[in-house]
């Protein structure tokens, strides 16, 4: 089992969700996060005083999938989230040791 974390532009959330549903992923967790990469921040002006906003708002999506689905899910997210402009985000993949569904006690792939 793998966890896929994708940090994306907030307005792309709907598209990514649709793409994941289409692929057959039935659940996900999202978090409103802030960060920056190559895009850096942006500046705001209040009465002429410059104010640098270093961290930009992003959405982090977390989904846990079977190992064989990883490539397909990555492709679905990347296609849906891509605008081609700087600041599109990143995808991270890591191993998951155990999953438990609290209601039934099912574990691992049955619980995903």
């Amino acid at each position, binding site marked *: 089992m793998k966890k896929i974390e994708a940090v994306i532009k907030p307005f792309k959330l709907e598209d990514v969700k649709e793409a994941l549903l289409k692929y057959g992923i039935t659940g996900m967790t999202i978090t409103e996060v802030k960060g920056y990469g190559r895009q850096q921040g942006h500046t705001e*002006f*209040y*009465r*002429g*005083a410059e*104010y640098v906003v270093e961290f930009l708002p992003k959405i982090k999506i977390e989904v846990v999938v079977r190992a064989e689905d990883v490539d397909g899910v990555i492709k679905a997210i990347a296609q849906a989230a891509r605008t081609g402009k700087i600041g599109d985000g990143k995808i991270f993949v890591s191993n998951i040791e155990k999953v438990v569904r609290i209601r039934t006690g099912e574990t691992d792939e049955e619980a995903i």
Partner: protein
Amino acid sequence: MSIVAADNVWILTSTAFVLLMSMPALALFYGGLTKTKSMLNTMMMVVVAFCITSFLWLAYGYSLSFGDDLGGVIGSLKYLFLNGISPKDAAPAAENLYHYLFIFFQMTFAAITVALMAGAFVERMKFGAWMLISALWATFVYFPVAHWIWGGGFLSDMGTLDFAGGLVVHETSGISALVGAIMLGRRKEALMQPSSLPLVAIGTGLLWFGWFGFNGGSALGMNAQAVSAAFVTTIAAFIGGFVWMGLEWIKYKKPTSLGLFTGIIAGLATITPASGFVDVFGAMVIGVLAALICFWAVVSLKNRFKYDDSLDVFGVHGVGGITGAILLALFAKPDVADVKGLFYGGGLSQMWPQLAGIAIVGIYSVVLTVVIFKITDKIIGLRVEKDEEVEGLDEAIHGEKAYTREF
């Protein structure tokens, strides 16, 4: 002259308008400009100053400002706690109005003047310190200066004109805001991060609305001057806002909402002393100059000298009030109120009393504010602790948050 019902109707209405300028207008305007973590503190500074000053006005402020003149400097204590005044009496200063109404109307001016200063001290001042400063400043700065110009004191004898408070309200509070901000020191996070620009928009609109009573009511009757003052006030406001927005667009490549709102307030503050003396043409020029000069003060002057006049009380109100008091001497039109400015054949005759008034009120405000801040620093201390400032004043001082989350 006897009581005129129509005049009383208008001035009672104006009183309510000026009250609205403090609460909620100024509280929203300043609160929206403050960081979210301290916005309630800012709003409370405005309202608590209103409460304190209003009480002092009844206790002795009205008497010091409008009581019998003592040597041109201060009023007598004959109206201590409004002693001996009946609700049926006419006001000695305006016999067409009930005495109570005149006191009430002037009370809202005193109160908002003190509240205006708060904008320079937000996000770092001890609440108790602000309360003491409010009381001392109303007593030793506002009440005497109001007497000098409006209560028959030496500046009015000298011919200094101030229709609705360019000197009495905006110069005193603006200059004291600057002095106080320097003595208080810069904030740890000395930048503007408005908690809510939509609140600033509502505050701006309500201030503009309230200014009909502030300037229109200063005619102290329902007459041509009242209508003209309200009309020219609105003209200066929208022109000021429009020009400020344009200046920003040129200099920073973006027209900001805050720039538009700030320009409106600059136009309103600047026309205030002149509003009863100039016509619509004068108001247009004043609107343009208000934006140019206040924009320079807020954007260039403040950045050059690095003082933390947090919400630009000096840059907008102080500079605006002084500018308007000078422009009055240029654009006063005899048609409006029998005062001739330079451009209407009056030469510089009105300029000298204006400049003298500005200088005297300015120097007096600086000296007294320094003393008041020193005293307050000794007794209470001016600033909150460093960690309270970073955590935000709302939780640290008031145990509240402007916006709560459920978890």
